[in-house]
């Protein structure tokens, strides 16, 4: 089943008179349960493309279809609902709420979805276990290492059981060991739960985890490949 379909998407940033064509007509389809990596040189449009898929930003032209819905036609609140219900995010800088504990950060999307207390607790505990942080539940982000923070972010992204998880450079701020651990967890979750992962990265070791690699160049898809190594 197709989770994401991108049709002729362009995104032009305008700052004063300066126009930057970050995306110049991208077509891409992502099926469910994929584990796909977006690669390409800096400035090639990876982040911009993820933002389009994630309903964080609107394309200048073209259509973005997520879970069968044309998200370019949605208003602000509908896009927020779309993100809450279908999409999880993992960012390079972990992006946790600093005032909330690991537990509460993971619980946040469940609260937004209006789930009951018992249900929330069970889900958060399950996820804490999946990312191996049960003993860190009550720590605030500033009391956790980078790798631990990123694992909390993964758990938070997974909490509402989204169809799709988008990760922008998830390992860029982690050392090799932590980076590998994070990727292992993502891969395992992908296998176990079937959640679709799309991640943008520069990191060659990370690219090796991908089962599909999409290469961007100057806002266009240059090539696609499937790494031999699994």
């Amino acid at each position, binding site marked *: 089943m197709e989770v994401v379909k991108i049709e002729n998407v362009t995104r032009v940033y305008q700052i004063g008179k300066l126009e930057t064509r970050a995306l110049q007509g991208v077509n891409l389809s992502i099926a469910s349960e994929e584990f796909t990596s977006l690669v390409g040189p800096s400035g090639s449009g990876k982040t911009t493309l993820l933002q389009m898929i994630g309903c*964080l930003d609107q394309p200048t032209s073209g259509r973005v279809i997520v879970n069968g819905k044309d998200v370019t036609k949605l208003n*602000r609140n509908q896009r927020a609902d779309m993100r809450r219900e279908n999409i999880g995010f993992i960012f390079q*800088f972990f*992006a946790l*709420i600093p005032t909330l504990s690991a537990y509460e950060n993971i619980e946040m999307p469940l609260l937004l979805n209006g789930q009951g207390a018992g249900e929330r607790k069970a889900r958060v505990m399950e996820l804490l276990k999946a990312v191996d942080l049960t003993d860190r539940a009550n720590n605030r982000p500033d009391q956790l290492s980078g790798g631990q923070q990123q694992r909390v972010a993964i758990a938070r992204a997974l909490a509402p059981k989204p169809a799709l998880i988008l990760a922008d450079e998830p390992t860029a701020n982690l050392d090799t060991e932590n980076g590998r651990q994070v990727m292992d967890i993502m891969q395992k979750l992908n296998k176990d739960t079937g959640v679709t992962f799309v991640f943008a990265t520069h990191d060659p070791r990370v690219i090796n985890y991908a089962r599909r690699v999409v290469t961007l160049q100057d806002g266009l898809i240059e090539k696609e490949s499937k790494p031999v190594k699994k």
Partner: protein
Amino acid sequence: MIQTLKMAFRDLGRNRRRSFFSSLAVGVGLAMLILMSSVVTGEMGGAIENAIKLQSGHIQIRAATYDENKSSLKWEDLVANPDEIANQIGALSQVKSATPRLYASGFLSSGNQSAGAKITGIDPLSPANDPYREGVISGSYLNPDDRDAVLIGKPMAEKLKLKVGDNVALSLNTADGNVQEQIFIVKGIYTTNTYGFDGATVFLPLIKAQAMTQTENHASAIFILLKDTAMTDTVIPVLSVPANLEVKSWKDLNALFVEWEAMAQSYIVIFYMIILAITASVIINTLIMSVYERTREIGILSAIGMRGGRIMMLFLAESSMLAVGGVILGLIIGVLGTLYFNVNGFYIGNMGLSGIVITDTIYAKLTMDNLVNLTIMTFVVTLLSGLYPAVMASRMQPVAALRAEK
């Protein structure tokens, strides 16, 4: 909802200093409003009551032709047989005291100093004159049959460098327009803590004043004090007086003062608004700063699907908490401050307003009405101030917010 409050509370806790100072700003604003209103209430109530007690009485009966500014002593401008009328009115149940008074303009001189004075003939035994008797700070009060004794105010004594027992020359106008002069002895010096009054008013026994001005059995006015100011309007209609006389209420007699108070009241409203505007701008500023500081966090919340409305609630919850904290601080500071000025008074000294008798010291007086209204007003203004920053937060684009990376 609980989570929203929890987050708001922790956010405030994260920047305790700033939260404290913005609450304090709200608190100081409220405290100033409370203090100001209680000083004004104290002054208003106090000043009018003071003017009634010392100068105008609740009601005066005068000749219809009497002109206060001229202190005319012509018989046709005076009240004839004043004791009779005073006794008759004094018998009414609402009346505390009714007593004749005679006013003459004159001046005192001692050595080469002299000063204009409002010579006032009073019946020393009437309870209406107790404030002067009680105000004697040296020497003694007048007797009805004193023939060469005067009671002068403290500012007058200072100006003419007079002590008890000193001689002072007193000249005044008489009924037929001549000037009469006599040497008196300063029998007592009084104060009513009302500079404008004490500096001008010199007392003589009524009989002596009548003799000196050749007004015989006449008075300028019957001075009437009631048991309660509120009774004024019910007493006036039941007073029957000879046709050539008229009845004046304290409102008529203090018209200038009443008007002045109304004007002061509207200036106070402007002050209130200034204080509230300052409070509001501090709050708006603080919250805008906090929105900018948390651009990234707002982006995260938005990315995980929090709607704009809910983000707004989060910031509104913060401003409500600041408002609650501020109001509590304000009530504590304001009420304590008012209590202090209620006991110790607020010294304003000589305001130098002629015709207006204001005590030198104002005692703050807080009414429940004022307290509740000002508290609600401050609270609402603080919440409204939180609105703009909250809307600003809710309108932030998630991408723009997320780009503001560390």
